[in-house]
């Protein structure tokens, strides 16, 4: 009798653990710990894991599917990224969260295409990245949405003539200003000229001298340059006495840029969100601070958390964790609930339609809220 009950108990435990294992949902995460993507992947991963941990504490996604993450370093190297994605798939990953840029995401998506494993970028915003296949998703407001909202703001403020500073070296630094230009001209503005730079260009003085000599002079300079190029550009502009309004993409939304002092005061940029008092975003910051001791000082943290919410809602809508079903459900989400902002995949090419915030850097290096808007899908510049 005793033996029988022991056997029964053992079978019961085995059955339970099998059930638990069956419910486990494996998510592979590409996170560059070094190289040019580390500043974006690091915070995005921290926010993602934080919210996954919160969900797991409540029983997993939708209280049902415990999540196990496989996190691998890519060193910001695309070849390494491809390798780790394969390893994560071999390890049972049913969802891949890829690095925060279009190029590594496109490479990862080639690997996940065979099994249709949904692949979502941490913060890549170039709309071209979802063209790889129906299993690829953006998470952050795309460059064309940001460009359209910023262009509308610029026109509303009376700016008429823009000068674009872009780099063909990345889809982000090239696409952002181009989308702005298209939207700006559609609204009656004029793009006077553009300057091309290379990533990590040592010196921007030649470009600045050219802009300064432009006749007629632009009344707004627009760039999607990231660090350290943006600080170099703005220092060179102000150093040469060019006081023209500067506007840019969400990559300007960093403590480093805000810390540049007087040279950036008054510059305007787009942003994925703004933590208004009492908002879900502000609450996220409080919880994150309380648990980790780190203050999320950019939107990549909260967007990482929103990726966890996107996955949770897609799995709920799919009613299963089957990769193809999750992809199909994700693509059909309408007004999904996020922390940074809500998101709609339905009717888009899987770059979610989300609110874009326009913010200004104040003289004392603070981020000031200017406006919040959703780009009109009908007039959105096409990739």
């Amino acid at each position: 009798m005793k033996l029988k009950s022991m056997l029964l108990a053992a079978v019961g435990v085995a059955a339970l653990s099998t059930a638990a294992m069956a419910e486990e949902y494996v998510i592979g995460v590409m996170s560059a710990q070094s190289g040019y993507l580390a500043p974006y992947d690091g915070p995005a991963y921290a926010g993602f894991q934080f919210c996954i941990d919160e969900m797991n504490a409540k029983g997993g996604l939708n209280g049902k599917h415990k999540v196990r993450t496989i996190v691998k370093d890519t060193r910001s190297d695309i070849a390494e990224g491809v390798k780790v994605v394969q390893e994560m798939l071999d390890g049972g990953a049913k969802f891949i969260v890829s690095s925060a840029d279009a190029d590594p995401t496109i490479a990862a998506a080639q690997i996940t295409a065979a099994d249709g494993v949904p692949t979502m970028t941490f913060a890549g915003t170039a709309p071209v990245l979802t063209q790889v296949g129906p299993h690829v998703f953006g998470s952050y407001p795309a460059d064309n949405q940001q460009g359209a909202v910023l262009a509308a703001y610029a026109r509303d403020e009376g700016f008429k003539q823009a000068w674009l500073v872009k780099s063909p070296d990345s889809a982000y630094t090239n696409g952002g200003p181009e989308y702005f230009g298209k939207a700006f001209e559609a609204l009656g503005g004029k793009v006077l000229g553009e300057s091309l730079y290379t990533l990590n260009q040592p010196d921007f003085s030649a470009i600045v001298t050219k802009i300064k000599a432009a006749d007629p002079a632009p009344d707004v300079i627009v760039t999607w340059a990231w660090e350290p190029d943006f600080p170099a550009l703005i220092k060179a502009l102000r150093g040469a006495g060019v006081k023209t309004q500067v506007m840019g993409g969400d990559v300007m939304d960093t403590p480093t840029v805000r810390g540049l002092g007087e040279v950036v005061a008054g510059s305007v940029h787009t942003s994925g969100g703004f933590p208004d008092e009492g908002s879900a975003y502000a609450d996220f910051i409080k919880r994150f601070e309380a648990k980790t001791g780190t203050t999320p000082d950019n939107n990549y943290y909260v967007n990482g958390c929103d990726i966890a919410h996107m996955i949770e809602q897609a799995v709920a809508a799919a009613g299963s964790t089957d990769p193809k079903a999750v992809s199909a459900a994700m693509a059909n989400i309408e007004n999904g609930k996020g922390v940074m902002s809500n998101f709609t995949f339905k009717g888009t090419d899987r770059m979610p339609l989300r609110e874009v915030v326009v913010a200004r850097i104040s003289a004392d290096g603070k981020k000031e809220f200017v406006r919040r808007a959703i780009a009109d899908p009908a007039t959105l510049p096409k990739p």
Partner: protein
Amino acid sequence: MELFIQQTVNAISLGGVYAMLALGLAIVFSIVRLINFAHGEIMTFGAYGIFLALAFGLPPAAALLFGLAAAVVMALAMERTAFRAMRGADVVSLLITSFAVSEILKVLFQNGISPRPVPITFPPAWSGAYEVGGITIGVVPTVSIMVTFTALMGLSFILRRTVAGMAMRAAAEDIEMLRLLGIRANRVVAVSFALSGLLAGIAAVIWTAQRGSVDPLMGFFPVLKAFIATVLGGLGSLGGAVLGGFVVGMLEVLAQAFLPDSLAPYRDAIVLAAVIAALLMRPDGLLPAASAHRS
């Protein structure tokens, strides 16, 4: 004409930074046959020195001195811990050692300080502009040109007129003979590293004043350009390194300024093609060292 003068100022300013970095590389190479690719990290460390000094509330001028000192200390530490043990090794082993040191330092910066760039804010007056005869010229490029020429003249004085400098030039010719004459080679090598560190520190000051931030990868590209400059000038030739630095910097700026937009993506390729063409005509460089060591 105004545009041309302004672009020329820009070109000399950038060329000056490359010249200083190239000279730092050349001083060390001429003595120990080491192409120090970790030279960029000496520059980065100097810039972090400025950042930390400012963060601890030092006045900007003192922070700059602290940055220079940090670069010198880093150069000396590098020589003592990594390169002294490799003295006499062949060029390839030394090169790989320098890559290793460079990678280790980059990872330490990323994990110990921040993978993100950190801002360095100097007083606004330091980044202004002034007018001469209707032409606006930036304060930073002007100061950088002045500092570059002062540093180069100072270095020239040290190399030609002081005992340490003469010992360094002698070591560049024949370090074994120098030893036989009773000069302590270790000291000469250490002084050469200290000088190269000082030049990297000055470059770091100018670079951060122009660019406003420092990140772990900051030193890589300028040192790559400086390396091209030393090869162009003549590997091992100090005068050649300076000339090569100015030529590369000026080619870069002038290509950016005056090439038509349709050719802009080929800018770097055009500059490098010009360097290759120059080397085809003068394989030992523009100003080859007396006993040229071709790579």
